[in-house]
């Protein structure tokens, strides 16, 4: 099956700093989503981005499908950005099936 790798595994930043999280995947995809998991376990949708670039406030994401990677940018970090960020993909070979394969996540800690 498809492999998803996220880096770095852990990131500790001062409030106000910028960060870049990376997601590499091993096969072509028809679905790629970024999630933020809060301390209570809720997975919050950030982006649906199988290709291209999107921005939402301080967050933006870019997926280069031909090179099989996606980047999540967080600017001017706030303490509320702390948590685990997951990349999840649905390979194009699964067309008709909604299985998402998740990476192992990046744990982001923002220090005041």
């Amino acid at each position: 099956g498809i492999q998803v790798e996220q880096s770095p595994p852990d990131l500790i930043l001062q409030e106000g700093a910028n960060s870049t999280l990376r997601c590499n995947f091993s096969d072509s995809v028809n679905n790629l989503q970024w999630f933020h998991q809060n301390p209570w376990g809720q997975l919050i949708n950030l982006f649906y981005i199988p290709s291209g670039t999107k921005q939402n406030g301080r967050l933006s994401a870019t997926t280069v499908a031909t090179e099989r990677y996606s980047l999540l940018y967080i600017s001017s970090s706030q303490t509320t950005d702390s948590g685990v960020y997951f990349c999840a993909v649905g390979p194009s070979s699964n067309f008709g099936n909604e299985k998402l394969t998740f990476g192992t996540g990046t744990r982001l800690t923002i220090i005041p």
Partner: protein
Amino acid sequence: DAGVTQSPTHLIKTRGQHVTLRCSPISGHKSVSWYQQVLGQGPQFIFQYYEKEERGRGNFPDRFSARQFPNYSSELNVNALLLGDSALYLCASSSPLGIGTDTQYFGPGTRLTVL
């Protein structure tokens, strides 16, 4: 509109027991998927149901089963519980197409502890 809802929020069972978890999708969504998240790992796909039919199954034993009802809500059943079944169980729903090319929205999860 309400998001994906799951019940119960927490559950404690003992080894060998059976458990039923419930999920209601976002209104208008016909696809429901179930995931298991063990502490420290990313969620793992268990099942997807669309229009009451199984569309996909992950690498889980036959002790795990699910079904979808005419109103598109779903149940996940786990028999003969093992300590290793302790996890956060997440339900996700997506748009009427359910073919894997749309955003999936997750519920708050059910935290199962097996003693």
